[in-house]
């Protein structure tokens, strides 16, 4: 897992959700552990899109539940 991507995902998550960096673990679920509601998830996805210059289609969003999921997804996307 890329440290660089993880750090940037953590930074964006802390900014968007107003959570502490130590709460943002690889296994942390956005909705269950980090208190995100459906609007937060949409805002996060848009923030990740901006940060990494990618597009995350709606059908992929449902697959992304944890910080680790995002890092793997972005890694895969940018490797393409």
């Amino acid at each position: 897992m890329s440290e660089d991507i993880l750090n940037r995902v953590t930074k964006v998550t802390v900014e968007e959700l107003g959570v502490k960096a130590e709460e943002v673990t690889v296994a942390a679920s956005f909705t269950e552990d980090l208190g995100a509601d459906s609007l937060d998830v949409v805002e996060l996805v848009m923030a990740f899109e901006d940060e990494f210059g990618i597009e995350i289609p709606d059908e992929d969003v449902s697959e992304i539940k944890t910080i680790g999921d995002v890092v793997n997804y972005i890694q895969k996307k940018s490797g393409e």
Partner: protein
Amino acid sequence: MSFQDQVVIVTGASRGIGRAIAAAFAAKGAKVACVATTLANATATAETIGGSARAYACDVSDSASVEVLFEAILADLGTPSVLVNNAGITRDGLIIRMKEEDWDRVLAVNLKGAYNCTRAAAKPMMKARYGRIINITSIIGQTGAAGQANYAASKAGLIGLTKSIAKELGSRNVTCNAVAPGFITTDMTAELSDDFRAHVEKSAPAGRLGTPEDIAGAVVFLAEASSSYITGQTLTVDGGLSL
């Protein structure tokens, strides 16, 4: 000066109700973005109302233009606190004679225009945890009108849009309400017959047609910070005509 330095966007600001709304916010200290289809018309309003009003040209039915518009407003004035979706047109005709292009154009400006602008404004408002979105509908959206199927449908659509946005954004302290004017003295109602005018004056408890300022007053009220517990509502401002 309850709106001191707040950024207020008013579409359809060149004439009638939109111009009165823009003027009302400017008088209360807001930085008003006056949006109209031509820059000359938008500038005329911005110069009349003074203060720090800025003029912008945009066809609100075109989503790409609206994106450019909001980028410019954000850069020039900052995060919007208030969006007033006022831009509206009529292309009247009985349904059996109504051309598809007249249906499409009215829905595009009146309803899709509000969708375009709301979508663009919602993101910065959500981030700021503050916003007031106000859609100018019409009593015609509630009652219907012969010869105005397109207009009535667009205005009824705005009421559904208002309620949905209120539900989506309520948790972010962004409210969305509608104002439904009755018969107001504007260019749009200038073609009404004298008979109809007399009928309104007789039927409305207020005994007169409304003025654009009557509508602006209601819009300002809904945009106040203190109106934060009012959302998803349609405020009818018709002198009691619909009673």
